């Protein structure tokens, strides 16, 4: 017993140190985001902010006003919210229909959905972006249809997995009580599927919010930049790199994520686990 206590104490110390190391990269960006542009070099990245190198919140102001971070944040938010909402509503309805009707067409469609989860994006990137261009899906307001199409695989697969566990009797009882299929879905099936909505919602949000290549190729990136595109643009662009505002951008990108994560930690972790086990 005594030995176990000592091991536990040692482990606590080890993991405390490791946790601090885990957070350090983010702390380093935070520190550097308050430095002047000229004070951020590869040699001084680990130095603390001093009175001479401090820029106050100037980097943040510059990022928001000059560098277009506010617009990028807005676009990313709009794209993520509309896409995830569309995926949740449409894919859950589709999954229910596919599982319940289960004719040849539905079966074929289901296997296509599963197949699409495996295919890497590089396979479609050129043809998809050309198609999106010619169909006018290249704005932040229409790109959600592409996300619905490309995200449908995982979503339908997870919803269908859950629908299969719902006893048919519940839905039949609703029908006998006079519900139309639409009413049955929204009043009976949807409430039962709530945990799956949360899991799918979290997984798709993590994907769309952080996605870089799809919006970069599909959107007209001189006009519309999402956050990942903006940050890539900072380094990819020619000429002088504004390191200070870039650090501020990174900080403003990860802070909301961390806050949401700390608030909804339990849902996020269980959503990710169920997604992994089924995927």
């Amino acid at each position: 017993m005594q030995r176990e206590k000592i091991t536990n104490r040692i482990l606590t110390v080890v993991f405390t140190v490791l946790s601090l190391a885990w957070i350090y990269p983010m702390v380093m960006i935070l520190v550097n985001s308050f430095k002047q542009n000229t004070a951020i070099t590869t040699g001084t990245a680990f130095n603390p902010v001093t009175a001479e190198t401090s820029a106050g919140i100037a980097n943040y102001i510059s990022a928001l006003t000059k560098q277009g971070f506010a617009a990028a944040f807005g676009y990313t938010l709009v794209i993520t919210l509309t896409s995830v909402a569309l995926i949740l509503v449409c894919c859950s309805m589709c999954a229910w229909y596919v599982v319940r009707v289960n004719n040849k067409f539905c079966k074929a469609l289901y296997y296509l959905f599963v197949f699409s989860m495996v295919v890497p994006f590089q396979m479609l990137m050129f043809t998809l972006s050309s198609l999106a261009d010619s169909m006018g899906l290249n704005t932040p307001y229409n790109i959600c249809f592409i996300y619905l199409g490309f995200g449908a695989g995982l979503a339908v697969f997870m919803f269908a997995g859950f629908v299969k566990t719902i006893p048919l009797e519940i839905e039949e009882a609703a029908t006998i009580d006079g519900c139309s299929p639409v009413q049955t879905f929204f009043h009976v099936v949807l409430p039962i599927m709530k945990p799956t909505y949360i899991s799918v919602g979290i997984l798709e949000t993590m994907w769309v919010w952080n996605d870089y290549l799809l919006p970069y190729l599909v959107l007209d990136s001189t006009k519309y930049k999402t956050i990942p595109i903006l940050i890539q643009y900072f380094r990819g662009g020619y000429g002088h790199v504004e390191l200070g505002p870039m650090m501020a951008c990174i900080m403003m990108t990860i802070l909301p994520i961390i806050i949401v994560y700390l608030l909804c930690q339990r849902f996020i972790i269980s959503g990710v686990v169920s997604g992994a086990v089924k995927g």
Partner: protein
Amino acid sequence: MVKSLRKWWPLFLLPTALSFAFGFVIPFVEGLYLSFCRFISISNPKFVGISNYVAALADPQFAHSFWLTALFTIVITVLINVIALAIALCFTRKGLKGSNGFRTVFFMPNLIGGIVLGYIWQILINGVLTIVGQQLLALNTVAGFWGLVILMLWQQVGYMMIIYIAGLQSIPSDYLEAAKVDGATAWQTLWKVKIPNLMPTITICLFLTITNGFKLFDQNLALTGGAPDHSTELLALNIYNTFYARAGAKWMGIGQAKAVIFCILVICISMIQLRATQSKEVQQ
């Protein structure tokens, strides 16, 4: 109910099926066809047979990227899974204080996107390289490769740890108690009880890390961008560069052919995964 549901397909099925057709099926089929063509835009492809595939396989850069990706995938698969399992074993011990807090911290990098992660680590690694007097990432192949490995560890250990913890917690406690009663040491319990019961979880984690490694793009682009001279360019980035960074009309078709080869590779890995998980489930 099913009968009356059937006629509701325009509402239930059509939106998803239509988006899926335009977002996946049509581009996929078109991509397959274009891999046999010479083209600069999708409006005027010219059929050229399998010459794109021949050129793709003959491209030394593609071969280099393939072996680099294979090596990278093996390294991260082993490291991530060993470390994640070790941490998960510690966190499921009785009486370890603060393990929930540690778990929160280790999982956090997962939520940050690949591009942002890449730049965070580029700044950090370049800082370290300056201190130890080595060349920066833009000129340093070895540091680029191991930097990418460290980045992936930082991002994915937490994720796999969470899955391993869920797996460990689902082992019935009587198994562990029986082992204890029989006088098994901690080491014996790990190898004879925990790991055999964890096999389905291990299979899932192995294949998640393998496919993540194979498909890696954002982190690669942001951390090294393939520098110096394409030597740290993984497969996905190589395909991207073949499409968009090389001059000449023939490269588009070759890029599409590479993408098809890449796609087949990933599908093969997934098929093996499906086999492995199914055979494990039968045993249980």
